[in-house]
């Protein structure tokens, strides 16, 4: 499905209509646990944006320049994960060197992101929808921002939830998932606006 989309449409679609978390249900576990606190949500969100945008580009290069010429497309699952892990490790080292403060704010989340399925998901979507290099970058950046939006919204809602009286059985994960579902329903309202893949 070669999308004849304008880059800006793709960008907004990645954030809203095809939100990686609320429409595609990827990246849920760190979303559920980290959204307790707004400060940590910001840290994790920014780290996710950075890693998603970068790895979608890297994986595009690896897929189209190495795997396809060697007819090894089926290995993309393993190879993408290896690339993501190595990239995150490198970035952690660089951040620690350059700025101790930035490392304390962001760097500690990087190992958590390696296993975030949304990161792998973005790279796989890139393959399925046959995006170009530029489109991969925009899609990765947009998806990251969409994930960031979702976790910030959830963190804000959970602050309010602290004063609410929730039925015993639903506390914690239960109510959070219900709210995520309601947010997903709300975002479905966007779906007609920007048709992409």
């Amino acid at each position, binding site marked *: 499905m070669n999308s004849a989309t304008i880059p800006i449409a793709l960008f907004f679609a990645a954030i809203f209509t095809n939100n990686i978390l609320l429409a595609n249900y990827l990246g849920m576990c760190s979303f559920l646990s980290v959204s307790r606190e707004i400060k940590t949500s910001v840290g994790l969100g920014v780290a996710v944006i950075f890693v998603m945008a970068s790895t979608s580009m890297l994986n595009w290069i690896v897929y189209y320049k190495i795997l396809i010429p060697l007819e090894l497309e089926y290995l993309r699952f393993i190879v993408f994960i290896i690339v993501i892990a*190595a990239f995150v490790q490198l970035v952690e080292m660089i951040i620690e060197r350059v700025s101790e403060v930035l490392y304390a*704010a962001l760097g500690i989340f990087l190992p958590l992101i390696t296993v975030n399925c949304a990161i792998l998901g973005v790279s796989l979507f890139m393959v399925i929808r046959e995006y170009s290099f530029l489109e991969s970058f925009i899609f990765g950046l947009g998806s990251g921002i969409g994930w960031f939006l979702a976790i910030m919204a959830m963190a804000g809602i959970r602050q309010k939830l602290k004063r609410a009286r929730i039925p015993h059985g639903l506390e914690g994960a239960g109510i959070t998932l219900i709210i995520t579902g309601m947010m997903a329903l709300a975002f479905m309202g966007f779906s007609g606006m920007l048709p992409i893949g």
Partner: protein
Amino acid sequence: MVSALLISVGAVSGISAFLALLMVIADATIANYGEVKITINKDKELDVKGGKPLLGTLMEEGIFIPSACGGRGSCGLCKVKVTEGAGQFLPTELPWLSEEERSNNIRLSCQLKVKNDMFIEIPEELFNVKEFRSRVSGLVDLTHDIKQVSLELIDPAEIEMVPGQFVQLQTPEYELTDEPVYRAYSVSSNTSDTRRIELEIRLVPNGICTTYVHNYLKEGDEVIFNGPYGDFHLRDTDREIIFIAGGSGMAPIKSILLGMVDENNPRRARYFFGARSKRDLFLTDKMKELEQKLPNFSFIPALSNPEPDDHWEGDTGLITDVVAEHMESGNNTEAYLCGSPGMIDACIKVLTDKGVPEELIYYDKFG
């Protein structure tokens, strides 16, 4: 088929190997901070490998900054003044530093990593703190929960210290722990004997170090400790002395008294020892011996809750009440206290009520 298999295995291995190589190079370059110079008190210079926290780096060079939590950032004791080369304050340091400390360049040395040349300032006393290897030469039960541990120094073979100071004993990792842990104990022996030290260690439920000492340590075992630390010592004046300490708080007092015997110190001294019942009393013979050896010393034990079987004929009641009864006026008197914060606060009140100036009341603060 085989060639496809070989290509796929080769490709994945190739990519992984390339990335691993990248990691190794990065580790050697980006994460490698090389050699840096730390200048202490504008005088001493150390050439060290960068990349580790300041606390650990200094420890490897034989300089021991006090720390109770093993560099985890949870005790706030390892503060060091860094005048140059420190970089921005880390979020893990900020909770421990007041406004004033921050403006004075005080940093938490267990969190601050050494990445470039640094200029630091530390108190001179810390240079005298060394790490010692020693051997257990004696283990004696003083009461049901206090053990006297005698350590014979191996390397360095001698320790220079003042009566009243303490050392940090290292509990190595043993059956119940994963890593070494340090705990502070006052030295109870005569410090003029520089080749050995004695500690009085009370068993604390759920205590890592005390459980090790009471249940695992044997004669002949090697023990590592560092020191000496502490500011609690006898001031050189003519004033009368009042000592108040119970339980393992006796340790620094005993050391001070032994020091007084050596110099035949003529000052009048009274030691009020508070305990619950007779089974908490110990070394009473030693105290009687000191009463003979010193010109003007009396040992006054007081039990707050004697058992009927104790047939106790000495003072009874709370230690603060006993002190109040015995004291006439606080004129020309200094006091040395060793115990829990609650006991110290209560004693300070009694002493100041009797006229002892607060600045002449000294206590060991690591309680």
